[in-house]
C-alpha cells in the first residue's frame, strides 16, 4: 500500500481525463474530416450543452452517493409546460417561471422521498421519471407544442459571441464559430457548480455525505436537508436546460431527451466522478461530457452506423465503470 500521495496521482485524479480528452480531440482533428470546421465545432458545443448543464448538478447527486433518473423527463416536461404557459398567457416570464417551478417541485419531491421517506434513490427517481414523463404527454396531448411568441427563441438561438474562424474556401466570406446561449448557460453552470463543489461548505458537506453518511451526520451535518437541497437543485437545473432546449427547438416536445439521464450519469462517471459517492470534481464532469460528445460527433462524421453507435456508447460506459472499480481497489477498500 502506497501511503504517499504521488504528484502524478494528484494530477491524474483531477485532470487525467481532461488529458484523455485533449488527446482524443487532437486525434479527431487529424483523422476525421471536417471535425475542426467552424460549423462542426458549433454543432459539437451545442450537442454537449444540455448534457453538460445537467451533469453539473448530477455531480452533486453522485457525490452525495445517489443519482437522479428523472432529469430526462423533467427536461421534456419543463419544455412542454413552458411552451403551454407562454401560448396561454403570452408572457415569456410566466412561461419560464412555470417551467422552473415544475423542475423545482419534482426535485423537491425526489429529495423528500429520499431523505424523509427513506426510499432508495433508484426507486424514487425511477418513479418520478415515469410520472413526469407521463404528465408531459398528458398536458401536451402527446404532440409537440409549437410556440407562437418568437421573442422566446432568443434564449436558445441567440449568437452571443462570434469567434472569427478564417474564410470559407469557396465563397471567400469570413466564417465565424458562433457561441449561442445554451453553450454559455452550460459554461456558467460549470463555473458556478465548480465553485460550489470545491469551495463551499455545501459542496464539501455533499462529498462527506457521499463518503460516509453516518459520520457526516454525527459530525453535525444536517444530511436530510442537504439531500433535499441537492435534489431540488437538480430538478431546477434540469428544468432550466429543458427550457433552453425548448427555445432552441422552438417548441415543447414531450418525447425529447429520453435516456438523457443515463447519458449524463455515464458522462460524469467516465470523467471520474465516483458512483459510490464522496469523490467528484467539476473537472471530471467537463472531461466526461466533452469526451462523450466528441466520440459521438466523430462517429457521426465518420458515418458510423447509428446501431453501432449504441454499442460503442455502451462499451465506453463499461470502460468508465471498470476504471471506477479499479480506483476503489486502489484505495484498499
Amino acid at each position, binding site marked *: 500500500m502506497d*501511503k*504517499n500521495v504521488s504528484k502524478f496521482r494528484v494530477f491524474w485524479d483531477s485532470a487525467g481525463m481532461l488529458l484523455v480528452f485533449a488527446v482524443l480531440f487532437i486525434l479527431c482533428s487529424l483523422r476525421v474530416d471536417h471535425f475542426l470546421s467552424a460549423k462542426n465545432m458549433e454543432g459539437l458545443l451545442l450537442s454537449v450543452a444540455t448534457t453538460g448543464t445537467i451533469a453539473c448538478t448530477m455531480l452533486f447527486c453522485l457525490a452525495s452517493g445517489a443519482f437522479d433518473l428523472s432529469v430526462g423527463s423533467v427536461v421534456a416536461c419543463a419544455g412542454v409546460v413552458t411552451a403551454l404557459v407562454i401560448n396561454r398567457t403570452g408572457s415569456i416570464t410566466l412561461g419560464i417561471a412555470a417551467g422552473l417551478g415544475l423542475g423545482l417541485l419534482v426535485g423537491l419531491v425526489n429529495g423528500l422521498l429520499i431523505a424523509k421517506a427513506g426510499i432508495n434513490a433508484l426507486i424514487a427517481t425511477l418513479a418520478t421519471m415515469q410520472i413526469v414523463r407521463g404528465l408531459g404527454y398528458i398536458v401536451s396531448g402527446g404532440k409537440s407544442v409549437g410556440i407562437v411568441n418568437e421573442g422566446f427563441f432568443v434564449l436558445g438561438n441567440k449568437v452571443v459571441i462570434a469567434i472569427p474562424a478564417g474564410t470559407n474556401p469557396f465563397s471567400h466570406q469570413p466564417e465565424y464559430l458562433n457561441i449561442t446561449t445554451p453553450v454559455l448557460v452550460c459554461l456558467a453552470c460549470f463555473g458556478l457548480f465548480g465553485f460550489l463543489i470545491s469551495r463551499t*461548505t455545501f459542496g464539501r458537506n455533499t462529498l*462527506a455525505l457521499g*463518503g460516509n453518511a453516518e*459520520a457526516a*451526520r454525527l459530525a*453535525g451535518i444536517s444530511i436530510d436537508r442537504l439531500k433535499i437541497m441537492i435534489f431540488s437543485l437538480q430538478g431546477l437545473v434540469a428544468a432550466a436546460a429543458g427550457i433552453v432546449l425548448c427555445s432552441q427547438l422552438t417548441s415543447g416536445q414531450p418525447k425529447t431527451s429520453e435516456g438523457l439521464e443515463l447519458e449524463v450519469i455515464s458522462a460524469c462517471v467516465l470523467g471520474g466522478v465516483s458512483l459510490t459517492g464522496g469523490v467528484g470534481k467539476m473537472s471530471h464532469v467537463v472531461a466526461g461530457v466533452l469526451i462523450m460528445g466528441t466520440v459521438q460527433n466523430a462517429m457521426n462524421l465518420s458515418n458510423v452506423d447509428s446501431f453501432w453507435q449504441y454499442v460503442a456508447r455502451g462499451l465506453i460506459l463499461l470502460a468508465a465503470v471498470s476504471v471506477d472499480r479499479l480506483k476503489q481497489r486502489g*484505495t484498499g477498500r
Partner: protein
Amino acid sequence: MPTRLAFDSVVKEFPGVRALDGVSFTAEGGQVHALMGENGAGKSTLLKILSGAYSPTAGSLEIDGQRHVFPSTAAAIAAGVAVIYQELFLVPEMTVAENLYLGHLPARGGVIKGRQLREDARRQLAWIGEDIDPDTKVSYLPIAQRQLIEIAKALTRGARVIAFDEPTSSLSSREVDRLFTIIRDLRARGHVILYVTHRMDEVFALCDAVTVLRDGRHIKTFDGMAGLTVDDVIRSMVGRDLKNVFNYTPRPHGGPALEVEAVTGPGLTAPASFSVAKGEIVGMFGLVGAGRSELLRLIYGAERRTGGQVRIEGRPLPAAGPRGSIEAGLVLCPEDRKRDGIVPVRSVAENINISARRHHATAGFVLDRGWERANAASHIASLSIKTPSAATQIVYLSGGNQQKVILARWLSENVKVILLDEPTRGIDVGAKSEIYAIIQQLAARGVGVLFVSSELPEVLGLADRILVMRGGALSGALARGEAGESAVLKCALPVSG
C-alpha cells in the same frame, strides 16, 4: 466413549493485534466446560476458530485425538462441531423442519421427500422435549424455542462438540432451567460442552470445569468446582499488572459541565442520571451490550431521547440532533471509527475541518482556504498525527492516527464536554498513551470528559470517577480511591433472577 476436545497452542493474529497467543487446554466429554474472560480476552476468537469461521495463524485443535485446522465452517460441521451464537442462524421464513435439515435436506433427484423430512424433524424435536409442529415457520416462534431448534439442528448434523456463546442472555429464568436440563442431557451423552458466559451464578450451577482467558492468553483451567469461589475466578480474569501508561495527575474540578437527568431511550432499561464536572474525567465500564454506547448516543442526540434532559453548563439540549449538541459544545468520538467517525475517501484535512469550518466560512458557505490549511496543519503538528500530508486520504492512516484526526476535529470546535466511546479500541500501545495524554490535557483545560471503555485498567488508570452499567442501566458509581478491579467487575457482572 466420551469425546475429548483439546486446543494446542492456538495463535490468531490480526493486523496489529495478537488476539490469541498460544492457547492450550483440554475439555473432556461428559463435562460442561466454562470459558470465561473479560471483553477482548479472546473467547469469541477462540469460538470462531473452533467453528471454522477463522483459521488460526498457528496451532491446531484435536477432537478425539484427530488433529484439525478447519479451513471453513463446513469442515467444522463435518468434524462434529456446532457453535450456538447469541444471534441465531435460522432462516425465519422457512419451516422448523427445513431449518433443522438445511444443507442436507432428504431428497431424491433434487425433489424433497416431504414426509421423511417431517418425521425426522419430529423425532429430533421430541428428543429435546419440544412439541413443535415441524411445519411451523421459525419466525412464529419465541426466541427460547428458536434456540432449542438451533440445538436440535446441531444434533441432526451429528455434533459431538457443542459450544454455547452466552445462551441465556435473552431467556427468562424458566427458559434457562429448560436449557440447562437439555445441556445436562447432552453432557450425559458424553458430548463436549463449551459454555461461554459472564454469569458467575450459571458457572457454579452448571459447569464442571472453568478455563479463564485474558489478553488472548490461557491463564488457568480449574479442573473441578470443589472449593472454587467467585473471587478466585474474578482474580484470574483481571489479575494483570497495571503499567504506568496513564500518568494520572489530579486536576481541580469546576461546576457541572454535563448533567444527564433521567434520560431514557432505545437500549436503556432504566432512566439514567449523572453529571460530569468541568475538568473531570469520568470512565464508564460495563460488559458488551450493557448499553454504554447507547447511552452515549442518546446524550449526544445521535439517537432520539424518549425522556429526560441533558444540560451543558446548565443549558438544556434539544432531544435529538448532533448539530445542536455540537453548537452547545458537546461532541462524540464514536466507537466504530470506520463506520461512524471518518469519511474514508476524503483527506485528513477534510476530516479535521468537516465540522468547525462553518464558523470560518465567508457568508456562511464560502470556505476560508487559509483557515482550512492552517487549522489542519496546526492539529497535525500538535497531536503529532503521522500522515504523509494533509491531503492524504484518511483510510491510509493507522487506527491511532485516525482517532487523533477525530479528536482534532473536535478540538477545532469550542468543546465543553467530550464523549469518547472506546477511544483506544484497536490502537497500539504507543498511540494509546498519546491519547491518554490528550484526554488529560483536555480535562486540564476544563473540558468535562466521559469515556466508555471495556478495558478495566484503562478505566481505573485514567478516570477520576467510575460509572458502571449493567443490562441497560447504571449499576454503580465509584470514586477513584474506592474502586478496585473486583469492585467494578462485581457491579458489571450480571445477576440473574
